[in-house]
């Protein structure tokens, strides 16, 4: 164990005394902040087009708008529903409620009974008809349940309509003019959809990039520079040398990954375009465990590739296809919505499936997640064993 720690300290010192390596470790975090902020806008706008089929929208509205006929926004929505191909399988039911029942109705939105609740200021439509635009007393608020696809969809459509129909009137403010939170759901379907695709992809790419920036040098680089043989001549066991290196790689990759993660967090507001997301502590902890097991797997996989390579260049060229595989695994949950236990045995894909499920529903089958973590740990242990064996193969280790 003492030798493992000696090698670990030496490796850490190596990583943190090489300026170029430091740059390659921590620059991605800064770049990610910039690039993903821009990328988030593209992804987010793509996901605002949430698809809803065979649904009846349940829309409540306050009756205090002041005219006999339906509010204009609802008539517009009826027209939209009748003419839109996308909505041809959908219908709508309206529930007029008294202005005194706002709080009760909001609770019904939160519980999922209503998809949308429109609150008008008193005599809102009268004010609109008389063109009394933009006075402080006239407003329209839209409350929805972001946990539901239907709620998200109708909110997006109605918001767009409000911008056109009630142009110049205030939207989503309280009587004093302060902004309100329109989503009454605990989380956000749209945000969850964005995250369920983006997070596995970013996790895979961030972790793999971190691993790629250090593992080629860890063994292949040492072979190339001729510094590894000196260590192989010492009485230290090969297993201790491997463990020391892997531990240092993990810590360094984790630090690099953390920097990238902070960059991602910085970019999240624009990624989600103001949509709120909340996770339970359990979900966050589980995500953390999944990230650690992913890191373990990637570090050991990278070290295997580094061990069989003769140079950093050769190692990097072998790592590139693996990165593509990791990316593919991150996208596959879009096509495979399965908690089939067999899938939990497929490395990388199992982690993506877990993350995807966790982010959309906030929960996942215990068996699936246990098998995922277990199988990744078994793969990691197997790879460490393989590296130790490879370290004893002269043809591979001695150039």
């Amino acid at each position, binding site marked *: 164990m003492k*030798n493992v720690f*000696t090698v670990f300290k*030496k490796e850490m*010192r*190596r990583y943190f005394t090489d300026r170029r390596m430091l740059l390659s470790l921590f620059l991605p975090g800064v770049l990610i902040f910039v690039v993903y902020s821009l990328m988030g806008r593209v992804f987010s706008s793509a996901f605002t087009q949430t698809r809803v089929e065979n649904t009846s929208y349940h829309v409540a509205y306050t009756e205090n708008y002041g005219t006999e006929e339906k509010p204009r926004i609802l008539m517009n929505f009826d027209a939209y529903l009748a003419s839109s191909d996308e909505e041809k399988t959908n219908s709508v039911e309206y529930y007029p409620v008294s202005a005194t029942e706002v709080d009760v109705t909001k609770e019904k939105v939160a519980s999922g009974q209503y998809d949308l609740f429109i609150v008008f200021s008193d005599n809102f439509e009268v004010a609109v008809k008389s063109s009394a635009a933009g006075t402080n007393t006239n407003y329209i608020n839209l409350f929805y349940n972001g946990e539901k696809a239907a709620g998200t969809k109708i909110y997006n459509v109605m918001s767009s309509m409000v911008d056109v129909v009630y142009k110049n009137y205030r939207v989503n403010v309280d009587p004093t003019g302060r902004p309100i939170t329109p989503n009454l759901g605990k989380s956000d379907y749209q945000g969850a959809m964005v995250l369920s695709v983006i997070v596995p992809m970013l996790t895979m790419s961030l972790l793999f990039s971190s691993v790629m920036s250090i593992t080629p040098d860890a063994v292949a680089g040492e072979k190339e*520079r001729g510094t590894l*043989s*000196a260590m192989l*001549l010492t*009485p230290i066991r090969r297993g201790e040398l491997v463990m020391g290196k892997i531990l240092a790689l993990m810590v360094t990759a984790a630090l690099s990954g953390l920097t990238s993660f902070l960059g991602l967090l910085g970019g999240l507001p624009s990624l989600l375009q103001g949509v709120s997301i909340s996770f339970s502590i359990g979900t966050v902890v589980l995500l953390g465990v999944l990230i650690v097991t992913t890191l373990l797997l990637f570090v050991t996989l990278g070290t295997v590739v580094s061990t069989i390579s003769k140079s950093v260049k050769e190692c990097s060229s072998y790592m590139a296809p693996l990165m593509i595989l990791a990316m593919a695994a991150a996208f596959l949950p879009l096509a495979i919505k399965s908690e089939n236990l067999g899938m939990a045995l497929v490395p990388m894909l199992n982690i993506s499936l877990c993350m995807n499920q966790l982010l959309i529903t906030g929960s996942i089958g215990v068996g699936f997640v246990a098998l995922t973590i277990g199988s990744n740990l078994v793969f990691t242990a197997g790879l460490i064993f393989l590296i130790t064996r490879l370290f004893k193969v002269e043809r591979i280790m001695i150039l």
Partner: protein
Amino acid sequence: MSESALLEVRDLYKSFSLSRKQRAQRHLSSDRLVAVNGLSLSLYEGEIYGLLGPNGAGKTTTLRMIATLLSPERGEILYRGNSIGQNELRKKIGFLTSELKLDDFFTPSYTFDYFSALYGIDNAERDRRKGNIFARFGVDRFADTQIKNLSTGMKQKVSLAISIAHNPEIIVYDEPTNGLDIMASRDVENFLLDLKKEGKAIVISTHIFSLVEKLCDTVGIILDGSMRLEGKMNEVCANASLEQVFFDLVEGQE
């Protein structure tokens, strides 16, 4: 010089598999290249053994097997007449080759400490040895300078210092003066003579006949992986210079 050998190498055999490309380059039909074939030699305390041979003769492979970097396919290496484990043997051997490098990003002092720790040397003993060895080579002035900022000669001195960090009984140096200027070469020669005085058993491989004539007590000439001539320096060079003896052997083989 004591009577019994400190290290005995018996009938070593080592071959390497060749890729198709390597076979074509060497115009060979076999897919294996025999690098060392039945080679034996003995090292004694307070003796310097010089290994001579053309490129590809098997010198480096032999030294790598002695240093435990490579395992022989056949044959054995005995320490004081006994077969001991690889890790035990590693504690007794100091190995240096031009292909073996130290990490440029570390200082000589840190590198010495690191290797001492891997050899299990306690801190007090390490500091004592580091002080003596660094002073001996003049490395002490550069002890905290990154190795990448040192001259080639100074790097070689640091490598020599590290190779004896664990006070080995057997010293195995593959072309120790390769690439060094005359001043640095002289320092290495003097260092080897000092080690000899300390009773170390030393084996070096080199292409420089004058170095062998000047330093070595025993010389062995390897051709095609086999020992073709071995003897005390004065016996081998009784009637001709070492260079003449060497070329007579090589041309006789052709």
